[in-house]
């Protein structure tokens, strides 16, 4: 991978981190609010069903995580096991795509 591509990876990780900073604050606040008096499907789905704002939020959240986590994992496997190279980059890309697809599926699942 060229150094330019590596710089773009780093930049993508930092930019997705900034997006996630906002998403996670919202997610934590929602969680802390939602678990009061117990959690139920009705309570969750009542909030997210047919709600385009929540759908948009979760889809952006998932996209940011799907970019952020694999780049982090690439660094961890390189530093912990010495695994580097095109094959590792491909594996990590596959993980990112899988996270995005699974996550968007979940977001759509609660949207209904």
């Amino acid at each position, binding site marked *: 991978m060229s150094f330019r591509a590596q710089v773009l990876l780093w930049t993508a990780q930092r930019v997705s981190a900034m997006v*996630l*900073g906002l998403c996670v604050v919202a997610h934590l606040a929602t969680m802390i609010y939602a678990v009061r008096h117990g959690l139920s*499907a009705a309570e969750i789905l009542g909030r997210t069903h047919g709600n385009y704002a929540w759908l948009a939020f979760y889809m952006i959240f998932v996209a940011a995580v799907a970019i952020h*986590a694999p780049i982090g994992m690439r660094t961890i496997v390189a530093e912990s096991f010495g695994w580097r190279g095109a094959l590792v980059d491909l594996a990590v890309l596959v993980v990112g795509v899988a996270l995005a697809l*699974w996550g968007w599926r979940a977001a759509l699942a609660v949207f209904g």
Partner: protein
Amino acid sequence: MKNDFRARNHPAYWAFIVHRASGLLLAIFLPFHFWALGQALNGAQALDGFLLWTQQPLVKFGEIALVALLAAHMAGGVRLLMLEFLAWRDWQKSLLAVAAGVSLAAGLAFALNVV
């Protein structure tokens, strides 16, 4: 010869360990989280069935831990973004204390509400 805990025993390094460990654990947790939420596709009862399972004390404890990990990773990440993108200042060390405090607060708030 490698550096051991004697060389690593300082605050910024602990912050790194927390950040890396929390990131890794959260990444491993994510697919499970997406699967659980995807249960809603099978209807509200399927989701409720899963939520019932989460009432167990051990699972509750796991949830509190996950929330703490998420808050810690986010707070540590915000600290790193500030260190990397803002010009260096002498109060960098205090950032660490603030990050630790914020994550603890978030974890506690969740724990007090979920129990």
